[in-house]
């Protein structure tokens, strides 16, 4: 694991970078004023992936500050309906995103989705530009089917660091959920905006799952089993 912070040098030398087509991920700032010089702007884990014709450098950082990107799956809170769309909050104190009434399965002008203020939705970011509103959709635009998107009923939400949310999302066999799934049944929707929706069979299970996810992000994978045992004992499940 190579951790770098601002002020560090890129751990890859220039000749390698120039050898293949390079894609630069977030947290590395390419300064247009300084001859596209690359500098490290955030602290995180550096990765350099090389393929036959191209290469990728990124810095994986974790924080509570979510910056939207097209294609991200998020858990959002509906702030209200306004004319033709809902406003949805992705994270507190950030400008809300827009979810059109038409961006649902089977939605027509007549058949409007019914979402109350304060309800949760699982949605995909369909358009993003820092200068305009973020747009969301609750269906797969190619098939027109919901495919798991839409309102999340019941359950509750745990807020986790963004890095952890991505880790849960993109590592299919991650030990965190693996362990939990052996213990109980649950539904989960992971938003890369740091919100994880969980619903267990009953209230106590949901609560235990919440506490587990919340505490798991501060533990090494070896300690997970112990945490689970402790929580389940505590709640007498």
């Amino acid at each position, binding site marked *: *694991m190579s951790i770098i912070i601002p*002020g560090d040098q890129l751990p890859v030398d220039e000749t390698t970078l120039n050898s293949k087509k390079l894609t630069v991920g977030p947290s590395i700032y390419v300064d247009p004023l300084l001859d596209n010089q690359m500098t490290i702007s955030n602290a995180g884990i550096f990765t350099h992936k090389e393929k036959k014709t191209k290469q990728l450098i990124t810095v994986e950082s974790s924080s509570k500050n979510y910056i939207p990107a097209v294609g991200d799956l998020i858990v959002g809170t509906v702030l209200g309906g306004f004319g033709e769309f809902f406003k949805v909050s992705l994270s507190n104190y950030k400008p809300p995103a827009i979810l059109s009434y038409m961006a649902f399965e089977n939605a027509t002008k007549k058949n409007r989705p019914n979402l109350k203020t304060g309800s949760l939705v699982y949605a995909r970011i369909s358009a993003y530009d820092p200068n305009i509103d973020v747009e969301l959709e609750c269906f797969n635009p190619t098939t027109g089917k919901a495919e798991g998107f839409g309102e999340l009923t019941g359950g509750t939400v745990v807020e986790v660091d963004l890095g952890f949310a991505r880790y849960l999302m993109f590592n299919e066999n991650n030990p965190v959920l693996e362990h939990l799934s052996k213990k109980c049944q649950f539904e989960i929707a992971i938003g890369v905006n740091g919100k994880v929706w969980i619903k267990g069979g009953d209230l106590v299970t949901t609560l235990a799952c919440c506490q587990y996810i919340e505490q798991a*992000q501060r533990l090494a994978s070896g300690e997970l089993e112990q945490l689970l045992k402790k929580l389940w004992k505590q709640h007498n499940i």
Partner: protein
Amino acid sequence: MELDAKIGVLNNAGGSSEVSLNGIKVVCGINGPMEARPRQELPTTCYLEVIIRPAIGNPTVREKYMEDKIKNFLNSVIIGNLYPRQVIQVNLQILEKKNNNSSYTSDSDESAATEDVLLELNCCINSAFLALVDANISIYKAFNSNIFTYTHKGSLVKDGLSEAKSRHLVVYGIKNNKVDELLYGENVGRFSEKKLFMALERGEKESMILHSKLKELSVESVKQKFVYLS
């Protein structure tokens, strides 16, 4: 004096740090970037709101002065165009301040108070760096701040809390593991041009030393954030 610091001390803030240096203890909490109120909104870049609160009493012009200095300086470091129409709020709470007899103040302490400004700025800037890294806000370069003092005998010391002829605050930016440029300087007292340059030169060296310490802290905090990978 040794810098003592912790990262991620607050829960509500997006990033935070607690730094003790030269008898001053500062907590920095950063909120944001978040949606700007209309009067703060800047179309292409982020609006920085710096709030400093003193350990004792209500904020005065002294705090306003420091807020302004730090705001101007941070504006040159944060990559603002990544956060258009948003606000980044930098809160600095001074918790402890060790002058001769901190728990007792009287009106005659005013002159000492102006000298303290440099010491407090010094601590605030270092604290702000750690908090920015913790908050994952993009910056052009790393930075840190040091204070140098010319004693009445004319020798140059780092920090130096006792009476001094002049005091120099030096902030260098660090990029690609090298001292990049002088970002900010502030001086009080009487000194010659030559002495100033000497202090700056010393600053360059000390800056790298301090940076390695801050780096160590930052790396440790990143490790902690990704502990679940281990």
